[in-house]
């Protein structure tokens, strides 16, 4: 029972982490290697708002931080990525460099040690089937599911969402119908960054805000996305359940140290067996030589 409950929690966590990355990649084809950095940035911003500007209520701090992260994402696209769009090598290097600059800049600016923590939303824990689960983790599951549903609704029933899907499916046809490609890419980066910030706000109260988490988040996000098929949303969720349970199982039966190893092994096996990922559709033609 312990494995099932924590497996579900871990899976939802992973899919929250990777949702932003997959959204950006599926819409604008930009592999956003700054994802982990934006995650930490937003966590740090919340911490900053609460502790440095006294009297800032927690919910407002969260909203402000997520908003700022979204703006940062949009600015990254507007001023940097827009100039190198379509040049894959440059895109990867530029986003990776931006991510590193943010992370190492934060480390230099004093983000070191275990002193940076966010308060949990609700203290205490509850017993579910004889397994003690704290409220924060329950909130993560609830809010996570809510996020998936609202994203689904957003992309299918709102005008912006439909425009995003249009660009993702066929950029030229969408442009002919009057959808501005750069504008949607900016929006997608903003939403992707906001999602990573959202994940940070939900997940960081469980631990400390440290720079290394940024790298781990990036790696897990990429692992989930590759396994699920880059750019496929359903695949992302399925893949996060696969990796999530695999991790909990290794933790229970082998050792905690191997979590990262499991993620990488999963990537390699997926690439060998089905390179387009679990739910990648026409990708196989596109990516496989």
């Amino acid at each position, binding site marked *: 029972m312990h494995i099932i409950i924590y497996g579900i929690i871990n899976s939802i966590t992973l899919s929250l982490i990777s949702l932003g990355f997959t959204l950006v990649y599926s819409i604008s084809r930009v592999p956003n290697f700054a994802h982990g950095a934006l995650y930490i940035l937003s966590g740090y911003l919340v911490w900053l708002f609460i502790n440095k500007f006294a009297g800032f209520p927690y919910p407002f701090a969260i909203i402000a931080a997520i908003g700022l992260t979204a703006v940062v994402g949009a600015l990254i696209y507007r001023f940097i990525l827009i100039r190198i769009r379509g040049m894959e090598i440059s895109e990867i290097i530029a986003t990776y460099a931006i991510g590193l600059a943010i992370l190492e800049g934060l480390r230099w600016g004093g983000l070191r040690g275990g002193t940076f923590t966010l308060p949990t939303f609700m203290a205490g824990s509850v017993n579910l089937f004889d397994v003690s689960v704290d409220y924060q983790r329950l909130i993560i599951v609830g809010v996570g599911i809510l996020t998936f549903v609202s994203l689904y609704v957003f992309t299918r029933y709102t005008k912006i969402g439909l425009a995003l899907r249009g660009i993702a499916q066929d950029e030229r046809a969408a442009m002919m119908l009057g959808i501005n490609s750069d504008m949607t890419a900016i929006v997608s980066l903003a939403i992707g960054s906001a999602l990573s910030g959202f994940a940070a706000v939900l997940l960081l109260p469980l631990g400390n805000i440290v720079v290394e988490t940024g790298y781990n988040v990036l790696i897990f996000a990429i692992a989930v996305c590759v396994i699920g098929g880059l750019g496929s949303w359903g695949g992302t969720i399925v893949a996060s359940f696969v990796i999530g349970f695999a991790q909990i199982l290794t933790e229970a039966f082998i050792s905690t140290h191997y979590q990262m190893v499991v993620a990488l092994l999963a990537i390699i096996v997926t690439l060998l067996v089905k390179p387009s990922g679990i739910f990648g559709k026409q990708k196989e033609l596109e990516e496989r*030589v």
Partner: protein
Amino acid sequence: MEQMRKERIDRGLKVRTEGLYAISSYREILYLMGPRLLLIVGVLALPFIFELAPYWKRVINIMFVYALLALSFDFLANYVGLVCLGGAFLTGVGGYFSAIYNVYLSFPTYLAIPCATITGAAFCTLCLIPCLPLRGVYFAIVTLMYPLLFTRIIEALDILGGTNGITGVDGFANQYVEHYIIILVVIGFLFAMRRFVNQDIGLVLRGVKDNDQSVRASGIDVTRMKILAVFVASLIGCFGGAYMAHLYMWAGISLFALDFSIIPIASVVIGGGGTLVGALIGSFILVPLSEILRAFGTFRIVIYCIILTGFIVFKSEGLMIFMQRKYHQFERWVKV
């Protein structure tokens, strides 16, 4: 208003040196040989120039290691189209292999380094094979993960000395051996790679980068070509790692450090991608800069990243291509 535009024309000297007239006078010969000789002689003279500054003499060694890594990155990214975000993986593997040979199997230094280079390169290639049949960002992703993964594995299993690393690796005989091994290898690899990419196989590799479907249509196995290219690039990187293990007389998880991944990339972008020499020049600029900035700690990485992004966005051709243009061509304003 009269409109003007800038026109670029090849210098007469350049045109003359393209054919047999290249050997018609010393001026032509000098025009061709000058830059190359300047590089070779300058690089060989570096240890003597810094004779009185022992600290900077250490920096020279590291600078050339980074130059090797940059060369390997440049080759993979601009001639084969594979972006390797994990140069640290190559140095780490090379360094550990060399340390294993030297300490556990007690090979002498000058045997351990070549053996480590070759076996390390084979090992790296083997690790990277799963993502080679694919196009797109997969290679970048997997190479980004490997250094971190190996750090974790070594920490978790506590093998190969764990977090302390393998100590007691033999060093070099003296300082000049230290310098000239790496300098000669860098020059050797530089000119060897220039040759390599201009031969038939280099042409095929460039084909793999630009249009792999057409390469496949010509009956050439794309994956095999990529494996070959990765092996060659890993040779270069693993030599750098193996050399470093002997230079520091130690192999530890810091051989997988982020610096070995990011500085070579920045050097290539600054120096000019696809020129191979540019990779060297970039690291000759960046590594001393990073030594000067050592007091700032991790802020160094921020500075590289800013320089890197700036160059990618505003001057993506890099310094080397810019200098080549100035050397071969002159510019003038003409009426439209």
